[in-house]
């Protein structure tokens, strides 16, 4: 699988590793060059400086050939915009974005976007642990 990830934070870097270890082709984008320090020295993928809400940066990451796009910056609106560009403009088959705000996540789902709200997931997890 050819995957483009936007946001090289802890989640983005971790996901890049997991996919890289299984020999998927990974391209990771971030606007902060220091963020790439989180990638392990044996990372085989491509790290690109750029903002994925910018169409040109996505083109540089060969988004048109990607099988999947994941947006995990810390900003909901950036993730939503980048994911919509990947889906609607570049027709990437699988697009997932992180939306912290549960209400907004629900809203983007209604627009046909696949979102994950860590807030909801974590709250559910905590509740499960409490009930055990």
């Amino acid at each position: 699988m050819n995957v483009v990830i936007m946001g090289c934070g802890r989640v983005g870097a971790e996901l890049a590793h997991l996919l890289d270890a299984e020999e998927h082709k990974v391209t990771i984008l971030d606007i902060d060059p220091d963020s790439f320090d989180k990638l392990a020295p044996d990372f085989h993928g491509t790290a690109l400086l750029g903002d994925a809400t910018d169409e040109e940066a996505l083109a540089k990451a060969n988004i048109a050939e990607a099988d999947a796009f994941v947006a995990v910056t810390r900003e909901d609106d950036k993730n939503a915009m980048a994911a919509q560009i990947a889906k609607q403009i570049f027709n990437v088959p699988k697009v997932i974005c992180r939306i912290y705000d549960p209400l907004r996540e629900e809203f983007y789902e209604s627009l046909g976007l696949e979102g994950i709200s860590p807030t909801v997931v974590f709250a559910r997890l905590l509740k499960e642990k409490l009930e055990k």
Partner: protein
Amino acid sequence: MYVIIVGGGDVGRHLCKEFLNMGHEALVIEKEAKKCECLKDELGSVALCGDGCEITVLTKAGTARADMFIAVTDEDDDNLAACQIAKQKFNVPQVIAKVNNPKNEHIFAKLGVERTVDAVALMLENIKAQTAVFPLTHLLSLRERGMELFLLRVAQGSLVGKQVKDLSLPLGSVVSLLIREERESRIPDPDTVLEPGDQLVCLIPRGSEESLRAIVS
């Protein structure tokens, strides 16, 4: 009319002032508490402190009864998110976003926010209109009609001595006005001969800007 403005910077603040002066009801949604205080000091209780992309904040602002929703922050992703939510969730009839990156205009349109103001283009065209060194100035987009209004300046050179009918304007264009120095402006005839310094107001179909550019270059 009830107008909601997201972004309380200079643009948002002055827009709010203008709408209030026109007798409308206006509200600015701004993240920074300090900017909100300034707005309240200057214009009264017209500011709501919060994130204009958050549904709870927009609900509190009464977005469901808004007649117009304008997003003018410096972040295009925020403007897009706010406008998509206003349009799709709250059914605001008039939704307009500022685009800071001109390339985002077509992306916004594709994602359902058709009405945008391209801040850079607007400034550039205004500069062109005021300096007279550029042969072509874009005056206005009549988007719903699919037409664009341009000002064409006849400088010394290839256009001088030509008749209006011989200008190879894009199909469907109309030369609607001739502005001539020290003479009355009028609607030109097809055989009006162009003189240096003439200015023509041309209405052309959207998308044919390049062929108009080719005429003056």
